[in-house]
């Protein structure tokens, strides 16, 4: 591939590709990510749709929050089990709303560490109906406690 064909002007996500230079030599070229530049909007569209769809399933009592985050993070029950140091069978039970309550707080903390969400995220989702309102979950040094900040963006 010629250097000019791999060059993408996108500073936010840089990658190194190898290509044929003008003088015919082969070497590294630092450039923007083609897929991020051209397809990131599509990624977020699909991700948001997935979040909405699975949040509805949690609300409808079809799945537990653990199953919700597991799908979002593209993990399998067996991989998740290995990460939270529980059996796959137990993780599969925790994925159902009926048995979610059997998980201990300490086990939920381990799940949250894998999903990188505060422990409160296992019990609630905060959504805003108003435009320009930003809700942020802030983790604290206490693994069992987080703070929500609600701010309106300045006009």
């Amino acid at each position, binding site marked *: 591939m010629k250097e000019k064909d791999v060059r993408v002007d996108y500073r936010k*996500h840089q990658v190194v590709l190898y290509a044929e230079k003008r003088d015919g030599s082969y070497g590294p070229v630092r450039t923007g990510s083609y897929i991020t530049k051209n*397809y990131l909007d599509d990624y977020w569209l699909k991700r948001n749709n997935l979040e909405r769809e699975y949040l509805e399933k949690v609300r409808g009592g079809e799945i537990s929050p653990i199953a919700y985050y597991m799908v979002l993070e593209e993990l399998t029950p067996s991989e998740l089990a290995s990460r*939270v140091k529980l059996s796959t069978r137990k993780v599969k039970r925790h994925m159902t709303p009926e048995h979610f309550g059997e998980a201990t707080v300490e086990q939920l903390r381990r799940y949250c560490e894998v999903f990188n969400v505060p422990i409160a995220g296992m019990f609630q989702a905060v959504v805003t109906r108003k435009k320009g309102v930003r809700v942020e979950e802030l983790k604290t040094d206490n693994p069992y406690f987080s703070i929500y900040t609600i701010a309106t963006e300045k006009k």
Partner: protein
Amino acid sequence: MTFKHTMAAHCESGTVAALLKHEGMDISEPLVFGMSAGIFFGYFESRKFPFPTFVVRNRPGQIRTGMASRIGVKFREQKFRDPGAGERALDDLLAREIPVACQTDFFYMNYLPGHVRVHINVHFIIAVEKKDGVYLVSDCYSPDIAPLDRDSMMKARFAGGSFAPRGFMFYPVSVPERIDYRTAIWKGIRSAAFNMVRLPMPFLGVRGIRLFAKKVVDWPRLARDTEHLSHEIMKINILLEDQGTGGAGFRFMYATFLREAAERLKDPDLHDMSKRIMEIGDRWREISLFAARIGKRRDLGQDRLRELSSLIYERADAEESFFRDLLAMSKKKI
């Protein structure tokens, strides 16, 4: 500590090359990748993966071990049961101004864009300093040296799951004064070519590419819905281009390795082979662009997937011929 940070295409080859350069060796990332037989293909369907996937490089860790066995560089390697001991050992080395490569879970590299960070336990970074409880790390995917808080570093080094790092870290303790590049290069080539065409498993090497071509038309059955299928098809582009491969699933980097090897060994045969694999890589890139396009358009009917499949079959044929020739050539040269 004066550590020269440079971006690289791939985390493991880039990390090993950077550490060896820090020790004064004149070595490039493609040379590290090629001598350690990095190029590969494998198609996997497993309970550990939520969807079928493929790899385009050898097993994580083999770039380091390959370099150790081929050029005689010695690495000090450590794993830990106790995270506290792992932290103390790393901090102690950094206090002595020794840059240390750490195996981590990519998910916790919070200085990189959120959409690229996934749980994968085989990401390598170099810790170069610890300042006020924050590690300064040289990550091949970051344009600059980046800060990583202690909490994230600990989670990343001691994550569970497949290929759990268990705090694994390494750094070179001795590099050879003289290197027999000829033997190292040809052994690396022979090993890579053997892995591509001679392994009997149906999911590895050229056979793996054919299995991928065969199976991709069945992916709609495995997907939740069209958007999920689109996501997985577009991931073909990410796995080939964006996930630290240097483009075309490492084929461009391998072409650069063969070109560098041709110049070092003054071997015109390798020069010709570098051109061939560069052309093979060009067609792989067409596949990844095709996958991204049909994924975004949701143009994922059987006709399109069969078209994608036939493009992949063509690559299998081209790579079989290429690696068979390379294997035959390597047998004559060593």
